[in-house]
C-alpha cells in the first residue's frame, strides 16, 4: 500500500530529523534551491516600496532629511560622551583587574520572509552560512535585541524572535541588577518574566537588559521595558509583563552580532597583551610626565612572557 509506505517514510524522516543531525546537509542543499522562493514571494512588497520611494514628494524627503539631521546631532552628542565614558570604563576596569570590554562586531542583514505559520514567531534573513552566520547567533535591531538564529541555510538564516513561545532569555533589571528570565508568550506585544518573587523590586517602566548569563546573548543590550506588575495574593510569583524594545514586527534591517567567542582566560590574556603593548609604546615614546617609566616597563615585562604560557595569570600580573 503506497499510502502506508509514504506515511512510514514521513514518520521516519521526522524522527531522524528531530533526533539526529544526518539530514542537516540535505536541508541546507534544499534550502539553496528554495531560498529564491522567498525572494520571489517578497518581490511585490519590494517593488511597492521602491515605487513609493520613487514618487515620494520632495517635501516629505526634505522633512525626513531634517529629522535625520536632528537625530544625527543628538547621536553625535551622545557619542562624544560615550567616548569619554568608554575611556573611563577601560581605566576603571584596569584598576579592577577585569578584562576589557571588547566592542562586538556586527553585520547588517535584511528581512526576506516571515514564517508562513502564524503561531510561530520566526523570520528569514538574507545572510547565511556563506556570510559566517552561525547557530544561536544573537540578532538586534536599532532599538534592542530581537532574537537568535535557529537555522542556517547557505544564503539565508532563520531567526527565532524573543516573543516565540519556545524562546526565553536571561535578563536583568537595569536599575538594580535583579536577574530574571524573560519568556516569549506567543503574543508579539509582550514578554513575561518567570519566577519573580512577590517582593522583588520590579516596577512598571523598568528597562530590562540582557544579562549575558546564558552565554548566548551579549550582555547589556536592551531587551524589554516592564509595563505592568501584578501582585496577586495567593500566587507564589508576581506576574510581570514587558514590551520588547526592538520593533519585532516592523524592522526590516537587522544586525547580526559576532560577540566574543573566546573564553574569559583567553580574553584576559589578550587584554594583558594589548595593555603591555600600549605600555611599551608609551615607554618608547618617552612619556615620562604621568607615570614613572620603570613601573610601566616592569608591567610590560611581567605580562608579556606570561601571556604566551599561562593564559589565566597575566591579567592579574598586568595590573600589579
Amino acid at each position, binding site marked *: 500500500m503506497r*499510502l502506508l509506505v509514504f506515511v512510514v517514510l514521513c514518520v521516519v524522516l521526522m524522527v531522524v530529523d528531530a533526533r539526529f543531525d544526518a539530514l542537516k546537509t540535505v536541508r541546507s542543499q534544499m534550502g539553496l534551491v528554495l531560498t529564491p522562493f522567498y525572494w520571489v514571494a517578497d518581490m511585490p512588497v519590494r517593488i511597492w516600496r521602491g515605487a513609493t520611494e520613487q514618487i515620494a514628494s520632495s517635501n516629505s524627503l526634505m522633512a525626513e532629511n531634517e529629522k535625520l539631521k536632528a537625530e544625527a546631532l543628538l547621536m553625535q552628542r551622545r557619542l562624544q560622551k560615550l567616548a569619554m565614558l568608554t575611556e573611563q570604563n577601560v581605566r576603571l576596569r584596569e584598576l579592577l583587574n577585569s578584562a576589557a570590554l571588547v566592542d562586538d562586531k556586527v553585520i547588517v542583514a535584511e528581512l526576506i520572509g516571515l514564517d508562513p505559520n502564524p503561531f510561530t514567531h520566526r523570520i528569514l534573513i538574507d545572510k547565511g552560512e556563506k556570510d559566517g552566520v552561525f547557530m544561536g547567533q544573537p540578532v538586534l535591531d536599532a532599538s534592542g535585541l530581537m532574537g537568535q538564529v535557529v537555522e542556517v541555510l547557505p544564503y539565508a538564516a532563520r531567526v527565532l524572535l524573543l516573543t516565540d513561545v519556545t524562546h526565553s532569555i536571561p535578563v536583568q533589571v537595569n536599575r538594580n541588577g535583579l536577574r530574571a528570565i524573560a519568556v516569549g508568550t506567543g503574543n508579539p506585544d509582550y514578554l513575561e518574566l518567570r519566577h519573580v518573587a512577590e517582593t522583588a523590586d520590579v516596577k512598571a517602566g523598568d528597562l530590562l537588559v540582557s544579562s549575558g548569563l546564558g552565554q548566548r546573548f551579549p550582555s547589556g543590550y536592551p531587551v524589554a521595558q516592564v509595563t505592568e506588575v501584578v501582585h496577586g495574593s495567593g500566587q507564589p510569583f508576581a506576574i510581570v509583563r514587558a514590551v520588547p524594545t526592538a520593533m519585532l514586527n516592523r524592522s526590516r534591517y537587522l544586525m547580526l552580532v559576532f560577540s566574543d567567542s573566546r573564553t574569559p582566560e583567553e580574553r584576559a590574556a589578550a587584554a594583558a597583551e594589548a595593555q603591555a603593548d600600549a605600555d611599551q609604546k608609551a615607554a618608547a615614546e618617552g612619556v615620562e610626565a604621568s607615570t614613572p617609566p620603570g613601573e610601566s616597563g616592569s608591567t610590560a615585562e611581567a605580562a608579556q612572557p606570561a601571556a604566551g604560557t599561562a593564559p589565566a595569570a597575566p591579567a592579574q600580573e598586568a595590573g600589579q
Partner: protein
Amino acid sequence: MISGRPNNGWVIWFSLTLALLLSVAPMPGSAELARPLWLGLVIAFWSLTLPHRGGLGAAFCFGLAQDVLAGTLFGQSALPLILIAFLVLSLQQRLRMFPLWQQSMVLLVVLGLAQLVQLWLNTLTGNRPPTLLFLVPVPISALLWPWVFVALQGMRQRFAVY
C-alpha cells in the same frame, strides 16, 4: 479519448510550484491566520482529475519542500498533504460526479482532517497553537475551491494534460 502516454507534465509541476510560492507569500498582519492551504487545494485538484498520474509522490515531494521553507521537521507538512491526496484519490469516483459546491463540502472535511493531523504533529514538536484559530484556513480554502478548480481545469484543457 485519453491517450495512454502522459504529456505536458510540466503544467502540473508549474501549478504546484506556484502553490508553494503562494504558501510563503507575505500577507498583511492578521490575514496570515487565514492563509488558504494552496498546496492542499492544488494537490486535491490533480488527484481528482488525473488520479493515474499519482498524487502521493508529488504530495510527498512538495510537502518536504514546504518543510524546508517553513523550517519544520522533514515530513511535518508532507504527512497532511499525503493524507489529502490519499483521501481525494479514494473518494475520486464519487467526487467527480458532484457539483462544485458539494465537492467544496467534502474538501472542507478532508482539509479539516489534514489540519488536525498538522495540529497533532505541531503539538508533538512543542509548538501547540494556543487557540482553535488554526482551523480558519479550512473554510477559506473550501470557499476558494470552485475558483481554483475552474482556473486549473481551464489550464489543464488549454495545455491538454492527460
